């Protein structure tokens, strides 16, 4: 259950009680009692700029860049021109390489497309389950970004910049809205696969924001947070006794500085930690989930099992008030070392995407359906995002290269115009058709923030005297996507 953090702190005697009617922060002075809890706690919940449509975001990063012309963006012309060179007119204004560059167009003979739902959205045969959720989704078929390598474009997807150093979107949300449940980190990163996603914490970094806003990576194990478990040789009783002594000592120290709220916050942080020690494993424990739910998330299929578990964890976290869950796709647990690949299909697109799509199809479909059933879809935003997508041509004849010039991403959930498609790519899926409708990373970020009740222009932080915002100096809310 989620506790209102401010209530909690006040009850704990940290707000009005112990600090009398006022709180004092060294270097700041007296502030009024109403904000004492916030002063103690940088993650105290904060008001948005306007009422948000959603409370939480599940950000599904499809790592490695899926080919969206093989998933959502149906291109009959491509099928016709397969095997031929790319007409020069499609390449105007873009920088390409020779290898992996302007080769012959490729279209898989295994690919079929159909329209689904009342909205008639196109899905390929790679996503049969997600297709059933068509009417919950708003597609952005005119996504654009920058970069020819995953490195810089993944950074841009997460932080808005090509160089490391800026806060990730989740960190901004954490900073601007605070936490709804003090017993859990409010910005959590999940991944399937044995290793952390490459480039690691830079992708959930707090950048120039204080470190308290960074994402916390949850390990796939039952004990998801580093240092969560008490040391091997210490019993629960020993720990309790230690915590009691610690509280006593910290209180004695604190009494010498009655106005020092930072020291009080530190005292309290151990009690919070004690609760987190129980709350975090419980939040990721799937043992009480029903067979039907497990099945819904594809946990009964070895290919989708690991991703399904991760998404079910995501749902449980959102249920418990976690603000931002960033899910990085990995690889299924049942593949050989050689097959441990992301969506990055430079060759054998059919094989690669068959596996990757099967890995995510049921889990994401299950997540959307489950959120709906639980009444959480209205307060949650689910985002399908990727660093870029793939070209209609490929260096090898069976795969595709990187395409940052026009591709599909989607959003679903509260405040979203469901069953809607915005923008389109040209007839071959190379570039956006209408540049005015191009949706860059900044626009996607601005739109996500808007749904959370945040104006991206007003969500600012002074870094070295410079007022910074999540969208750098760019970004516009894509109003057409809003219900």
């Amino acid at each position, binding site marked *: 259950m989620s506790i209102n953090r401010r209530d909690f702190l006040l009850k704990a005697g940290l707000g009005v009680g112990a600090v009398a009617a006022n709180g004092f922060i060294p*270097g*700041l002075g007296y*502030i*009024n009692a109403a904000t004492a809890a916030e*002063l103690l706690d940088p*993650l105290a919940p*904060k008001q948005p700029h306007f009422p948000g449509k959603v409370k939480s975001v599940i950000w599904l990063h499809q790592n490695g860049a899926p080919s969206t012309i093989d998933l959502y963006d149906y291109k009959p012309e491509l099928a016709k021109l397969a095997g031929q060179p790319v007409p020069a007119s499609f390449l105007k204004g873009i*920088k390409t*390489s020779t290898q*992996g560059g302007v080769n012959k167009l490729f279209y898989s003979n295994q690919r079929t497309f159909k329209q689904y739902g009342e909205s008639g959205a196109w899905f390929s045969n790679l996503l049969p389950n997600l297709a059933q959720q068509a009417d919950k989704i708003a597609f952005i078929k005119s996504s654009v970004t920058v970069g*020819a390598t995953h*490195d810089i474009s993944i950074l841009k997807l997460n932080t808005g910049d090509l*160089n490391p*150093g800026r806060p990730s979107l989740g960190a901004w949300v954490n900073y601007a809205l605070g936490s709804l449940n003090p017993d859990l980190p409010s910005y959590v990163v999940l991944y399937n696969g044995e290793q952390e996603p*490459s*480039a*690691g*914490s830079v992708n959930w970094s707090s*950048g120039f*924001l*204080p*470190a*308290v806003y960074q994402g916390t990576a949850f390990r796939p194990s039952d004990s998801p*947070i*580093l*240092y*969560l478990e008490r*040391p091997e*040789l*210490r019993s629960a009783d*020993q720990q309790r*006794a230690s915590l009691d*002594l610690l509280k006593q*000592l910290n209180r004695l120290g*604190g009494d010498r*500085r009655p*106005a020092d709220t930072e*020291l009080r916050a*530190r005292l309290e*942080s*151990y009690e*919070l930690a004690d609760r987190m020690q129980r709350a975090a494993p419980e939040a990721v424990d799937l043992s009480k989930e029903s067979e039907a739910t497990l099945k819904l998330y594809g946990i009964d299929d070895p290919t989708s099992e690991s991703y399904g578990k991760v998404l079910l964890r995501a749902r449980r976290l959102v249920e418990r008030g976690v603000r931002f869950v960033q899910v990085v796709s990995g690889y299924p647990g049942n593949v050989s070392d050689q097959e441990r690949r992301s969506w990055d299909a430079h*060759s*054998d697109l059919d094989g690669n995407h068959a596996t990757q799509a099967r890995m995510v199809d049921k889990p994401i479909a299950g997540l959307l359906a489950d959120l709906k059933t639980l009444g959480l879809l209205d307060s949650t935003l689910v985002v399908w995002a990727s660093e870029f997508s793939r070209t209609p041509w490929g*260096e*090898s*004849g069976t*795969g595709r290269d990187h395409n940052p010039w026009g591709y599909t991403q989607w959003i679903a959930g509260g405040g979203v115009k469901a069953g809607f498609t915005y923008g389109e790519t040209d007839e071959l899926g190379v570039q956006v058709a209408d540049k005015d409708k191009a949706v860059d990373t900044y626009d996607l970020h601005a739109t996500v923030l808007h749904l959370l009740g945040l104006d991206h*222009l007003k*969500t*600012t*932080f*002074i*870094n*070295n*005297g*410079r*007022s910074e*915002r999540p969208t*750098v100096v760019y970004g516009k809310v894509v109003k057409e996507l809003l219900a």
Partner: protein
Amino acid sequence: MLVRKGVYIAVMLAVTSSVIGAETDSKPAPAAARAGVPNGWAYQPVKTPELPAVKQGKWVRTPIDAFVLARLEEKGIKPSPEADRATFIRRATLDAWGLLPTPEEVKAFVDDKSPNAHEKLVDRLLASHHFGERQARRWLDLARYADSSGFQNDATRPNNWRYRDYVIKAFNEDKPFDRFIKEQVAGDELWPESQEAKIATGFLGGYPDNANSRDLVQRKYQITTDITDTIGETFLASTTGCARCHNHKSDKLSQKEYFQLQAFFANTAFDQRRPLDKGTETAWDKKFAEQQAKYREATKEIRDKQAAILAPYKEAGIKYQKERYLTDSRESIFKPEKEWNALDRWVNFRHKSVFNADTDTAGYLRLTAENKDHADHTPDRITAWKEYQKLQAELRKFDNLRPLSGSVNITTAVELGTDSPPTFVRFGGIHERPTEEVQPGIPALWGGDKVSITPTANSSGRRSALAGWLASANNPLTARVYVNRVWSQYFDKGIVGTPADFGRAGEKPTHPELLDYLAGNFVKNGWSVKKLQREILLSSVYRQASDERQDVVKVDPKNELLAVYPRKRLEAEEIRDALLYASGQLTDVVGGPSVFPPIAKVLENGQADFDGNRQWTVSKDKADWNRRSIYIFSRRSLPYPLLQNFDPANPSQAHHKRDVTTTPLQALTLFNSDIVVNWSQALAGRIINEAGKDESAQLSRLYQILFAREPNKTEKAALKAFLAKEESVVQKKVAAGKFEAAVPTGLKDPSAINPVRGAAFVDLVHTVANSSDFAYRF
């Protein structure tokens, strides 16, 4: 709407200076304005201020005190009494060394009746190698120092520790700060014979990088941008970076001027494989070379076989690799060398430095072997690739022979000719939209000084010109910016609260005359960092007690006037180092290749970079596990977990200010980490060895070691009650059949203590080490 804005600002200031609610990115920060300080104060020449007249003349030990006291007297506030000696030595040792004083050091200082006891202490602190280790850490924050390149591949930078050691040495030798700047910005140009000066350019070379970028021209722009912004913020406290995309909105800095600043670095490339000068090899280098030779010897046959397999595909593989670059990069790469212009030279040098004929050919072979539809596919490639892989598996068996850390090279900035590639203004900062070409120049805001650029034999001379200007005594910013950083290290907050922004959007100095006094004196004293710190450490301001004072709280709630010494939480490295040192486990070795202490099993090893270095392979030598934190390998994608929750520097960009946040994750780290438990065991053992069996003596010793004081009565009672209770808790475990508990380690006489009592004592030590009295310095 938001919470009332004023209140909100206060809320976030608790964490750092920040605000929600500013309208656009251009709106200046709410500066804590001080009446009478004009805009653009930072660009005025440094004045020699007159010492203000003060009433309590006796309090003044150095001119610093006069400036601080004058403002206190204006407000009618008395300074705080002097901190007791034990508190002072703990504070000063933590500030100067990042470590705790030993009980013997505390006692010697407390008992020192001589009139210059403080001077002796401070001189001892400044003379120790620990001084350089601590000061260097702060400088490395600014140099965005890391041992890896960042981005997905996050390649190991095997030479970077040499730059780290250079910085430690510079502080320990009290290298004049102007020379320190020049070496870091243009060491290769100014002292081409000096290896040390070349290593110093590692300051510039610390930019995050992705070796597999396919757009080298854009990469060059990103690297130059990083360097320019780092220089602007670090030396000039100017947010120059703003002016890359648009004219600066609060400071008079045009986009054109920004790119003129970039132009100083237009011809700068980096050589990461410059062999060490003969005869300069350290013991580590020799060990590395030896180990590498062993590895090569053991694997020669395998590698030769691999080379033979690759040989027939090499030409095609290299061509393939080159063709993967984007349009303008390719133009340079495929241009005959005699036609190269300055940009082509840069691109090709870069290409050469990231290109590896063997691994790139192997990648090509794999692609054309596995993909039967590839135009270059031939059946023989399938066999060749299989054979190659088999050998690769063989090779991996020798991984434990590979040297883990170190190199036989240095990294240095280098220029490839006297002429520079052109620098263009970029519309909106966007690389693809160059407009007007510009020449190097100093922005008018900073005086617009004409700097004369004289090319050297094979270098443009541009950086030398910039370095000379930066390190000039007439530059109004450089000295002010640095003394402010040092001040903020000792007093938590700078005289200017925004150490990286002295512009209009930054805060105004609380004591402008003091800032000028310190800056002027710093230059007069030959830019001596030690003299600067000595004066601060010996000031009456620094000696004050940090006890809360209600009278100050009312008149000066932000404590800007420093009537009270500001207490502060220890920085990430201080927490680890101090505890490690207290436990008696610290391996006190200065310098050398970075080390890998154990981390959570799930994070160990990890993916390999292009050179086959794993992310985190734990150091074999256990002594390396207990080195100071500055020597721990700084991997950008995997910050050392024990430090990560305590607001360490983020090496992505110059890091100016250590935030203080308080979170349950910190509590979990200190309370549950096995490493902290191990140190507690060792500290418990040390205490028993030193204090003997007597319980009271043990408790005293613990408090002396960690807090430089005795436990008071209440504390002692609480500790004793805990021991009794904990002993019975542990005893119950024993009764249940198994004795599993952390006991004191390193005991001289293992029979000296009953293990149950010992386990309870370890828990006590561990708990006390978790307390705020340890995590703060007062």
